[in-house]
C-alpha cells in the first residue's frame, strides 16, 4: 500500500504542477462567467438554467482534464519510457496502475471541488438580486450530490481510459477509443429504448442483441447525470442512488483490475 501511495503522490504532484491544468481551470472560470451573463438573458427559471449550465461546465472541464491531461500523462509514461523510472524499482505493474489511477483520480476529485465551488458561486450570483424563480425543492445538498455523481462518472471514464491506454500501441488511439466509449456510454441506453419503442427491429434481431451486449459491457453514464434532478429540485430515490454508487465504484474497480491483467502481459520494449 505504501508503494501505491508513493506512486499516487508523484503522479499527483507532477500533474498538479502541469500548466495545462491551470489552462483548464482558467477556461472553466471563463465559462462560469459566461454562465452568469447567459443566464441574465433569460426572463424566467434563471435558477434552473444556472444550475444546469454550472453542472455542464464541471462535466465538460472534467472531460477535458481526462482527454488532454490524464491520457497524455499515462500515454507518455509508456511511449517515452518514463515508466522505466518506476518499474526498475521493486514495484509490480499492479502497484503502478493502481497508484497512477489514484493520483490522477485525486486530480479529478480536486478539480471537481474547485470547479464545483465556482459553479455554486456562479449560480448564486446568477439568481441573486434577480428576484427570480427558484425551484421549490432546490437544495444545495442535491447540487453537491449531483457534483459527486458527476465526479464518479469521470472516475469511471478514467478507468476506461486506463484500459485503452494499456491495450493500445499509441496514446492517440487510446484518446479516440476513450472518446468513442464516452459517446457510446452516454447514448446507447437511449438508442436501445428508441429502437425498442418504435419497433423498427424485432427484439431478437442481431442488432438488438449487439446493443444489449454493449449496454451490459459498457457503463450507462447517463444514469450518473443528475443535472435535471438538481436543476428542477426533483425528489431522489436514496436506494437507487446507493445502488448507483456501488455500481460506479465496482465498475471502476473491475476495469482497473482488467487493465492490470492486460498490462502485466504487455512488454515494454
Amino acid at each position, binding site marked *: 500500500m505504501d*508503494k501505491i501511495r*508513493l*506512486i499516487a*503522490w*508523484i*503522479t499527483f*504532484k*507532477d*500533474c498538479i*504542477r*502541469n500548466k495545462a491544468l491551470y489552462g483548464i481551470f482558467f477556461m472553466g472560470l471563463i465559462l462560469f462567467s459566461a454562465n452568469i451573463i447567459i443566464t441574465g438573458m433569460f426572463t424566467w427559471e434563471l435558477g434552473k438554467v444556472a444550475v444546469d449550465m454550472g453542472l455542464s461546465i464541471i462535466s465538460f472541464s472534467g472531460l477535458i482534464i481526462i482527454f488532454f491531461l490524464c491520457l497524455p500523462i499515462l500515454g507518455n509514461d509508456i511511449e*517515452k*519510457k*518514463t515508466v*522505466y*523510472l*518506476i*518499474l*526498475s*524499482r*521493486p*514495484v509490480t505493474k499492479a502497484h503502478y496502475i493502481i497508484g497512477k489511477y489514484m493520483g490522477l483520480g485525486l486530480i479529478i476529485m480536486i478539480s471537481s471541488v474547485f470547479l464545483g465551488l465556482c459553479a455554486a458561486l456562479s449560480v448564486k450570483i446568477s439568481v441573486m438580486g434577480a428576484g427570480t424563480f427558484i425551484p421549490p425543492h432546490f437544495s444545495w445538498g442535491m447540487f453537491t450530490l449531483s457534483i459527486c455523481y458527476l465526479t464518479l462518472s469521470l472516475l469511471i471514464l478514467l478507468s476506461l481510459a486506463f484500459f485503452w491506454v494499456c491495450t493500445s500501441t499509441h496514446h492517440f488511439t487510446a484518446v479516440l477509443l476513450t472518446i468513442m466509449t464516452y459517446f457510446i456510454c452516454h447514448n446507447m441506453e437511449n438508442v436501445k429504448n428508441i429502437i425498442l419503442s418504435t419497433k423498427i427491429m424485432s427484439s431478437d434481431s442481431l442488432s438488438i442483441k449487439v446493443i444489449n451486449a454493449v449496454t451490459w459491457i459498457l457503463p450507462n453514464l447517463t444514469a450518473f447525470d443528475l443535472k435535471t434532478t438538481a436543476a428542477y429540485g426533483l425528489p431522489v430515490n436514496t436506494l437507487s442512488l446507493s445502488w448507483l454508487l456501488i455500481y460506479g465504484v465496482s465498475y471502476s474497480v473491475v476495469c482497473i483490475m482488467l487493465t492490470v491483467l492486460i498490462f502485466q502481459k504487455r*512488454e*515494454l*520494449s
Partner: protein
Amino acid sequence: MTAIQFNNVSKTYGQGLKKQKVLHDLSLSIMTGEVFGFLGPNGAGKSTTIKLLLNFIRPDQGDIHVKQCRVGKDNYLHHIGYLPETPCFYENLTASEIMYFSGKISGLKQDQLKEQTQDILKRLKLDHAQSWQIGTYSKGMKQRLGLALALVHDPEIYILDEPMSGLDPMGRYLITDVILELKQRGKTVFFSSHILSDVEKLCNRIAILNKGKHLFSGAIDEILPQYGSNLEHAFMNIIQTDDRGKNG
C-alpha cells in the same frame, strides 16, 4: 560468485512476416564485484539484453538469474540500480522529490534517505539544482540525475545503459569517477557503451555482440594480442570478420 547469469536467451520482436530475431542464444556470466562492459554496434541487441534483465520484456527462450533470483519469477529489483540510455523523468518534479520517491520505494528509511540524497547530489554536482523542476535541467544534468537515482539505495548491482551518452567532458569525468569508486567498493557494474576508451579504463571483462549474436567475452588482456593492438582495432576486427562471414 555469479551476480548475473544469462542462459541461452533468445528474443524475437514482431510477428508473422515482420518477425525479427534480435538476440540469438545468449549465454553470459557476470561475476560479483566486476565491471563488465557490454559492447556492440547500434542494433546489436545491447538494450534488448538490458530490458530482458530488468523484466521489461520477456525472452522467447532461456532464463536470466540475478543473484540466484530468476528474472520474471522472483523479486530481485531491490538489488539493482538502473540508468536508462535516455532517462525520462516526471518533468514537473524536483530532483529532491524524485530522489525521495526512488529511495523510499526501494525501502530506505527517512533519515538514511536524506543523508544519501545530499551526498549523491553533491557528488554529481546537482546539489545547487535540487529544488529546480527537472524540466529545466540540461541533457547532461538529466543523465547525472539518472545515475543519482541508480545510486540512491546503494544496490549491489548497477545496470548502466550508455551512461556517458550526451555528456560533456566534466559529466563523463564525474560518471567515470563514480564507476571507479563502485569498482573499489566491490559492486557489480554491467554497462553498455560505444566509448571504447572508457571501457578500456573501467572494465575487468567485456562481451561483444553483433546483430544479436554473442561474438566474444573475456578479459581485455585476452582480446588485445589476438584481435588487435588496442580495443578499438580489436572491436572493429571482430565485427568486420563477423559481417564478412555473414555476407559470404
